[in-house]
């Protein structure tokens, strides 16, 4: 008989700015927001670079607090179970 330990994983919902892409993701508690963004962008299959190869900058907004998280904050310290985070891009029109 196998034995497993049940982890109390912290999970949140992550969405793109339109709300048309949304996924429930596990939060790596000890990483910084800046590091976590990279993972979220991949997970939501958002564009990482523009046509010239310049990276897009995304900022995650924590809906519960109505603010953007700073890149240096620790994810496990600022997020709570079932929080909703929306990725906001900096994008140019010309």
């Amino acid at each position, binding site marked *: 008989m196998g034995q497993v330990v049940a982890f109390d994983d912290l*999970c949140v*919902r992550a969405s*793109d*700015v*339109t*709300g*048309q*892409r*949304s*996924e*429930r*993701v*596990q939060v*790596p508690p000890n990483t910084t927001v800046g590091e976590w963004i990279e*993972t*979220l*962008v*991949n*997970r939501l*299959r*958002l*564009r990482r670079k*523009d*046509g010239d190869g310049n990276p*897009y*900058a*995304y*900022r995650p*907004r924590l*809906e519960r607090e*109505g*603010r*953007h998280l700073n890149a240096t904050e620790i994810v496990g310290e600022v997020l709570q179970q079932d929080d909703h985070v*929306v990725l*906001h*891009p*900096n*994008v*140019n*029109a*010309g």
Partner: protein
Amino acid sequence: MLLRSAHRYVAEALDLEGRRLGELSLTPDFSPAGEWSHLEGVRCGALDATAHHRSGVVEPVFDQTTGPPYVTGFRVRFDAADPTYNGPEIPWNYFQQCVEGSSAQMVNNGTLRAGEQFVYRVCAILVDRNQQARSPGSDIVIDDTPVTLALESVSLDRCLAGASRLGRSAWSNRDFPVFVPSSVLDEATEMVDAAGERETGGILIGYLRRDSESPELLAEITAQIPATHADAGHSHLTFTADTWSAVSDALALRGRNEILLGWWHSHPNFCRHCAAVMREQCALARPFFSRDDCELHRTVFDTAFSVALLISDVGEENLRYDWFGWRDGSIVTRGCHLFPGDEESIYAHRDECTTLRARVLNLQEKHHEY
């Protein structure tokens, strides 16, 4: 949109006399084609409007005349769809931008000179499934949260009866109907006038609805939210994270479950100080959706129902209003239906909207204080 392909795609480049120059490896992004195919499936009732259809396989459509590996296009077959549903064929010119981008390979190896014209045919070559890479970040997924569009029913015929067509030259009967109230255009025009030589813009919000008599969809734009906190200049407009935050706050204040349907922005008169003869030849003297505009639409508004409005000052008496949207997975000019202003669903809450805008501005000030 999670799409797989059992084929790799290459372009066979030929000179203008039909001589073979070489082969270009293509790495097409099939996501816009997938979004378009999904929308078409929903429009004809073959797919429901939930996210669980949004994974599938890209299958080449081989040229009936030449046979494989040459293709006339491709289809997206969704995993959860009725297997008898074929979906629309996306034509081969979907690869055009990708071929242009890849042509540098041939310039670099001396096969082509920079600026030299060539023609191409697209080929699909079967590859080993094991060579296909997994999506980055897939190790942390727990589940996809189905995004279901709330498709309230309305009578499309009734809507059409009260509306007039905008952008006649760009009209295609294949496009799904989009309705915009004149109040939105009025507000945008006021903003353009106030912005002067700088660009300005906003976000178009509203509802995606379903015709009560058919599976057809339609979009009803209900309002525009000004792009506050945007960095605006003579030839650029940057939507910042704070811009999106203000949009989110405005949507929450309105409390009507509206969704983002698209965006709009303006182009000032770039040729104001140019000689008349120069203006006649200048591409900037006509309405155009720039490369950055396409990038923004592709990056933020990649769902196939999303539209964009461009308001251009081209030195004429009146501003020009051009609409853009997705067709066959590519961004094209399109038409739009204009509500004249007496439509109940648009104007019943006009005073309330004005009050709400004032409250949104107030909230934004508080947001900055915070």
